[in-house]
């Protein structure tokens, strides 16, 4: 082939490739922006929406599925942080009032003048329908916890179409009952859903236990068919500001405004695209390419904040109503006796520099937390004791604390050399020669978590406490660090960490019955303290608001776990012009509140 011909061919190929690239451009998700009636919202990395029924099992009722469901089916009481503080957002609720009996044993609620999208009114019967389904199927309900709703609700009585009374098994703290229990209720369209098979007529089947079980099964079976969400008539009767336009099994969801919505939170943007992402990196790339209107970046990207603002985004950290911690395994056959000693837990806590971790490791995207109540938000629940940090960072004092309790530094590690139960000895059950070493099974996959663990290892070493780090995916961490008794083989773990995105997100009222009460369902380390148990009971039953503060102070001092900085739920990047909302610290998103400024 002659040279000119060869060059001509090369030039032609280059032009063809350029033309192809140019012709291809413009694909993908175009961002919307001000003046548009559409928005692209990035779902958390690796999350695929897969449920829209507002009742279901624990595997389905996660926060993001819940946010989508609540856009379709408005809750009775929206008790969340969407108004900038954690409170009852009446605009986003079906109920307009809740009147508790003076003795605290019942509540009478009032419904607004509201309608389903098919024109039928929303009545007490729709609330009773939810109540009957949950009562009959509580074991399968994801939000069920023994002794709590619906166990503590003894009866439901419809006063009329817009008023009903729920009676409790004893007197309860009205704030707790409203925020943590009644907020579970979501009126469901009885007139459309009360069927014992997909083809059956609507009856009052839910009023018998057997019928309610059948209805539950029908609804849950239908909810398992994701591909039918947009087409099945079952999902057309809605009460929320949005309906499903499309719902891909790959995770992309498009919601469109419900034109029949007559509540207080009318959709501000007509079409909401919820976009799934396979990784945080893929999402950040989409943000940088301008394909997302409301997304997120990694904490490590905070160094480049200006690059996002230059692209037209506001960087807005989204704090979570959460705490982060490492539970001790008090039943560990080797270290359990050491963990039982308050002075030992104090020495550990004093060896952790939360302020520096939050500032350096988390790039300022975490909040030091010194007790069981979230501290990233201002609230009346935090005690002064917790706020003031009873055990400030000091490895010197931590070391002194150990040496004054019978421990001696041998090599790099503290060893118990004076066993016994007097005030200056190691304490009950701690044998002579016991080395103060601990191993954490920590969540893998996060550079920030790895760095935090390394920093903790370094500062504990200064006190003479050995700290080794083992990592596993979060599901393995949870599986391998169960609640256990000392004679079980699975009880060989010392510390567990599953809090890369925060260990525990609270409902609106931050009580600790699951976490720190003896035999609480998420009390993995088997912490037990009778005084704390009584305080936790008081937070749910007493009308005295200071009880939560007492509980906060007691656990800030007693250290049932190692308190750690609580990371922000998300470092959001929001297109300039997207307004009208506060980021809900309960980690829900509320598309109806989003608006493009003109």
């Amino acid at each position, binding site marked *: 082939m002659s040279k000119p011909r060869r060059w001509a061919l090369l030039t032609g190929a280059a032009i063809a490739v350029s033309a192809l*690239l*140019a012709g*291809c*451009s*413009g*694909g*993908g*998700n175009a961002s919307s922006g001000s003046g548009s009636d559409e928005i692209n919202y990035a779902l958390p990395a*690796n999350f*695929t929406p*897969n*449920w829209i029924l507002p009742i279901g*099992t*624990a*595997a*389905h009722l*996660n926060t993001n599925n819940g946010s989508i469901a609540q856009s379709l089916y408005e809750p009775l009481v929206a008790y969340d942080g969407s108004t900038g503080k954690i409170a009852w957002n009446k605009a986003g609720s079906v109920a307009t009032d809740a009147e508790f009996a003076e003795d605290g044993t019942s509540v009478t609620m009032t419904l607004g003048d509201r309608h389903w999208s098919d024109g039928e009114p929303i009545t007490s019967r729709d609330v009773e329908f939810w109540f009957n389904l949950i009562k009959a199927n509580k*074991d*399968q309900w*994801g939000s*069920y*916890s*023994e002794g709590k709703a619906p166990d503590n609700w003894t009866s439901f009585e419809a006063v009329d179409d817009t008023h009903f009374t729920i009676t409790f098994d004893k007197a309860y703290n009205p704030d707790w009952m409203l925020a943590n229990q009644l907020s579970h209720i979501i009126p469901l369209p009885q007139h459309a859903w009360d069927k014992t098979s997909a083809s059956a007529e609507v009856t009052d089947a839910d009023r018998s236990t057997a019928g309610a079980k059948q209805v539950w099964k029908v609804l849950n079976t239908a909810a*398992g068919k*994701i591909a039918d969400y947009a087409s099945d008539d079952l999902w057309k009767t809605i009460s929320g500001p949005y309906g499903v336009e499309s719902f*891909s*099994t*790959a*995770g*992309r969801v498009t919601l469109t405004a419900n034109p029949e919505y007559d509540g207080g939170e009318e959709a501000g943007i007509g079409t909401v695209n919820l*976009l*799934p*992402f*396979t*990784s945080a*990196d*893929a*999402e950040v*790339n*989409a943000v*940088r*390419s*301008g*394909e997302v209107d409301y997304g997120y970046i990694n904490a490590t990207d905070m160094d480049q904040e200006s690059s996002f603002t230059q692209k037209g985004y506001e960087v807005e950290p989204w704090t979570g109503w959460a705490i982060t911690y490492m539970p001790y395994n008090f039943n560990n056959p080797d270290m359990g006796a050491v963990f039982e000693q308050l002075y030992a837990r104090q020495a550990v806590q004093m060896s952790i520099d939360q302020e520096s971790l939050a500032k350096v490791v988390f790039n300022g995207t975490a909040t030091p937390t010194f007790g069981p109540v979230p501290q990233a938000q201002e609230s009346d629940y935090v005690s002064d004791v917790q706020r003031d940090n009873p055990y400030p960072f000091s490895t010197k004092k931590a070391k002194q604390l150990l040496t004054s309790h019978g421990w001696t530094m041998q090599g790099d590690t503290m060893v118990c050399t004076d066993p016994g139960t007097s005030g200056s000895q190691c304490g009950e059950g701690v044998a002579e020669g016991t080395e103060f070493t601990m191993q954490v099974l920590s969540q893998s*996959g996060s550079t920030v978590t790895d760095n935090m663990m390394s920093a903790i290892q370094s500062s504990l070493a200064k006190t003479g406490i050995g700290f080794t780090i083992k990592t596993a*995916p*979060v*599901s*393995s961490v*949870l*599986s*391998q660090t*169960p609640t256990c008794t000392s004679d079980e083989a*699975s009880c060989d773990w010392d510390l567990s960490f*599953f809090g890369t995105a925060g*260990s*525990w997100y609270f409902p609106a009222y931050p009580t600790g019955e*699951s976490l720190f009460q003896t035999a609480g*369902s*998420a009390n993995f380390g088997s912490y037990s303290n009778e005084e704390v148990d009584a305080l936790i009971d008081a937070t749910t039953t007493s009308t005295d608001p200071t009880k939560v503060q007492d509980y906060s102070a007691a656990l800030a001092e007693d250290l049932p776990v190692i308190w750690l900085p609580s990371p922000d739920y998300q470092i959001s990047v929001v297109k300039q012009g997207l307004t009208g909302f506060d980021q809900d610290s309960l980690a829900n998103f509320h598309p109806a509140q989003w608006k493009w400024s003109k």
Partner: protein
Amino acid sequence: MTTTLYLLRRVLQALAVVLIVTIVVFCLLHALPGGPARGVLGVSATPAQIAAFNQAQGLDQPLPVQYVRFLGRLLTGDLGTSYTLNEPVGQLIVERLPKTLVLTGISAVLGLVIAIPVGMWQAARRNGAVDYAATALAFVFYSTPAFFLGLVLIIVFSQQLPWLPSQAPGGNTLAEVFQDPAGLVLPVVTGALAMIAVFSRYMRASTLENLQEDYVRTARAGGASTSAILRRHVFRNSLTPVIAMLGYYLPVLFGGALVTEQLFNYPGMGLLFWNAAQSSDYPTLLGCVLVISIATVVGTLLADVAQSLIDPRVKASRA
């Protein structure tokens, strides 16, 4: 041995291998401490909910019973339901596998179409400027991690020159994927560059080896030109090791390219497998293992058959 008998024997061997793989994976999964319930249901799950989950999934049964049930369902085409994705595993594979095959298949074809002539060209002009340049480029792409290469492409073509989207097509069907061809360009190029780097080296080495053979010298003595020798004689013989490699590459085609899928937001088989492993989603893990092990034995089988078709010496050695 006739070809039919040979193939029959290989198919039976393949079935045995797949069965053994499922037994090993099944045992390994269930040997993990704790079980999947807590990981799937989350921190706040109660003991009653965990017990109900284990009962519903049959995880409270002895391991042999669970395995026999798994095999029984498998015979009816039921791979179970994903713990985390709320979909039958069979359906998930049906959705993800074609997408993966499209991405990895186009990358492989593009890579081969470029790698084979480049490798031969380099061999024909070995130690020349072109050979050195192509070798250097191959080493660069071979040693560059796919995530970095993909990231560079995204920065250049999506962010600096906003010509192409940073995400692969998000559709769930092939029709939806092909509606957005622009989205396929960067992930395909990322995969193809690595493929070119690897296979051009194989092709170069194989061609060089063949160029030393007696039959090439004989052809030259007979007056055949270099290009004719390459086209008519060396090309086919040089393909033999490349085809063997391609057979081993088949599991990658089916298993998906995890890094590319993560980076370009393209939920395929690789990501399905990875996420299932991360979340202890046993049914999905077993389904993926089944697909990949079948692809592995089929790939090996196809490579052997193709080699025997191309190279009569291979067939003779089996006789």
